[in-house]
């Protein structure tokens, strides 16, 4: 109960409280304390010092333990850099949005924690829908036409997607007709235990609906459009949150239903769908990278790509599953760095179009170099973590029946890398035609420090490979019947 209140109630109370306390500085310090407590406790749970029992519809199992750690980590760094983001001068109408920023951020934390910790499908559904609602006003932060359209599309399409996921949950109930589970509550654990008794046809239908519905929120092609629009138009800390943790909150629902199928004959079918979804996401990114002219949009497509790789790895199973879990950690961390530097660039040039950005390395040296290294990190260049996780996924793919796919995927990844680098180098090096070269110095901001720490963390986790991370991932894999 104590842990539950830390994870869920305190952020919600803070969110309400912030409507009364209007001072941004106070809000920031309180939010930071909450984030730090959240991070500490998820870390303690992650390294097995705490093993709490949660009441009602919540529980801690290997899956939620792993993902709440990622959420806490992403949230803490985003909260830390939020104040320097809010201090930046904004348009008259965006000033209005600052009042609600921390309030909504805390709601976001509460709902995401609740979704990750829930062990009941109904609770999961309610909280996932609530995360959409808490993030939508944050997308509308800049109060301009683009962000308004992005918010409308995000609310509308994701709500319909989640409604479809609810149909999937109802089908899951149907699949339990005539078994011990009939008339019982929709607890994950019970369903996994009795999974072999479920009716395979309805289970299949349930997986399709939940996967397709939630992929509007995960951003898996072909349902990715609203997600890309929203991520590219949200302010940079929110975009980092969405890429790093919100997509995983939705992914955990797919993993839950996959976990149920992993004890049945439907498993092969479900994995097939994940592989198709993953490959399709890569393909969509491959096509879009040729024509994208907006650097934040490029980063959003990169999120589609990496969630695609994760779902591909999970679909293949075996060692690729382990790789996919590592990939989830690394992707979430590198995305914070990328979006924060993109936010710094946006703040200086006031445009998201690549054509309007020149000589970042001279004008914003710190953000520019960090952006360059983050690009290397996200493209899978050693010593950054994504290289190692992708190698694991490819190894699993090579020894699986779908080995032919590997050639196609590496081909697409190569072109995604080339196009992303082309866009980035154009931003970093192109000289402005009617401007002399002038080297300016950039003030050290908190986002630079955070970025450097996070880039170090990504490579350190990969190189040192802490036993505890591997152990936790193995525990998750065991839930899916994967033995190495």
């Amino acid at each position: 109960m104590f842990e539950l209140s830390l994870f869920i109630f305190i952020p919600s109370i803070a969110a309400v409280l912030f409507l009364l306390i209007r001072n941004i500085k106070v809000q920031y310090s309180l939010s930071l304390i909450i984030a730090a407590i959240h991070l500490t406790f998820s870390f303690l749970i992650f390294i097995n010092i705490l093993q709490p029992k949660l009441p009602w519809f919540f529980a801690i199992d290997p899956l939620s333990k792993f993902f709440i750690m990622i959420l806490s980590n992403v949230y803490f760094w985003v909260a830390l850099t939020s104040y320097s983001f809010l201090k930046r001068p904004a348009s008259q109408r965006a000033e209005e949005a600052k009042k609600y920023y921390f309030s909504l951020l805390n709601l976001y934390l509460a709902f995401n924690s609740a979704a990750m910790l829930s062990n009941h499908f109904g609770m999961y559904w309610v909280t996932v829908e609530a995360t959409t609602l808490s993030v939508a006003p944050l997308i509308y932060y800049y109060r301009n036409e683009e962000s308004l359209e992005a918010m409308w599309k995000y609310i509308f399409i994701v709500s319909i997607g989640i409604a479809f996921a609810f149909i999937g949950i109802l089908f899951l109930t149907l699949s339990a007709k005539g078994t011990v589970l009939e008339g019982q509550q929709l607890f994950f654990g019970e369903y996994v235990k009795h999974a072999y008794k479920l009716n395979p046809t309805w289970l299949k239908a349930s997986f399709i609906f939940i996967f397709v519905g939630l992929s509007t929120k995960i951003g898996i092609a072909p349902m990715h459009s609203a997600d890309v629009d929203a991520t590219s138009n949200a302010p940079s800390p929110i975009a980092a949150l969405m890429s790093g943790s919100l997509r995983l909150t939705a992914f955990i629902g797919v993993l839950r239903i996959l976990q149920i199928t992993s004890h049945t004959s439907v498993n092969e079918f479900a994995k097939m769908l994940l592989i198709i979804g993953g490959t399709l996401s890569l393909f969509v990114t491959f096509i879009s990278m040729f024509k994208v002219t907006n650097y934040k949009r490029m980063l959003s497509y990169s999120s589609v790509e990496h969630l695609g790789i994760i779902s591909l790895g999970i679909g293949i199973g075996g060692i690729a599953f382990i790789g996919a879990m590592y990939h989830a950690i690394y992707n979430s961390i590198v995305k914070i760095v990328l979006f924060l530097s993109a936010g710094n660039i946006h703040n200086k040039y006031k445009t998201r179009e690549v054509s309007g950005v020149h000589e970042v390395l001279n004008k914003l040296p710190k953000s520019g170099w960090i952006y360059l290294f983050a690009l290397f990190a996200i493209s899978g260049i050693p010593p950054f973590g994504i290289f190692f996780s992708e190698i694991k996924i490819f190894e699993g793919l090579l020894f699986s029946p779908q080995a032919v796919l590997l050639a196609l995927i590496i081909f697409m990844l190569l072109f995604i890398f080339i196009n992303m680098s082309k866009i980035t180098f154009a931003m970093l090096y192109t000289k402005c035609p009617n401007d002399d070269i002038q080297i300016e110095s950039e003030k050290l901001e908190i986002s630079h420090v955070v970025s450097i720490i996070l880039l170090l963390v990504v490579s350190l986790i990969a190189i040192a490979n802490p036993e505890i991370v591997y152990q936790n991932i193995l525990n998750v894999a065991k839930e899916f019947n994967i033995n190495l």
Partner: protein
Amino acid sequence: MKNFSLANLFLPITIFLVKVILIPIYINRIIIDLDIKRRIEPTIQQMSFLVIAIFTMIVIFMFTNILSNSTDLEVIPFASGFSAIMIGIYIIMFRKKLIVHVSGFLILENGIFLIGTSIASELPILIELGILLDVFVVVFLMGIALNKISSTFKGFEVSDLRRLKD
């Protein structure tokens, strides 16, 4: 009426309040505030829309009937729920006005509730209330967004939303 208690009435009354009274009043107020004309602007012929809707319903009812042989489900609520979901989607696809999209979404949502009753899955009251609250807040946020859209874009049709593309 052995297990009857007043507490059992709580959920139905709340659902009635939210779905039948609060949401319609709210949508009505938006229509009056924004001065939206009560004219349907479909992207396809009204006649063909009807034909498509009827055809879909026939297919769904037949399909459900076949399904009910192997699984224990009630045909009428299940099939009407599913038809409502499909028609909600058609309305979102084939109509231009954004406020009509909101009602399409509500039709879809109601269809899901109907399927829920046909499966007789009972969720705990806390979660039922959570679902209801979510639906209400979604409609509420959509209403606010619609207000902003009509003041920023000087219109409330899908065709006004075409800034974001690759």
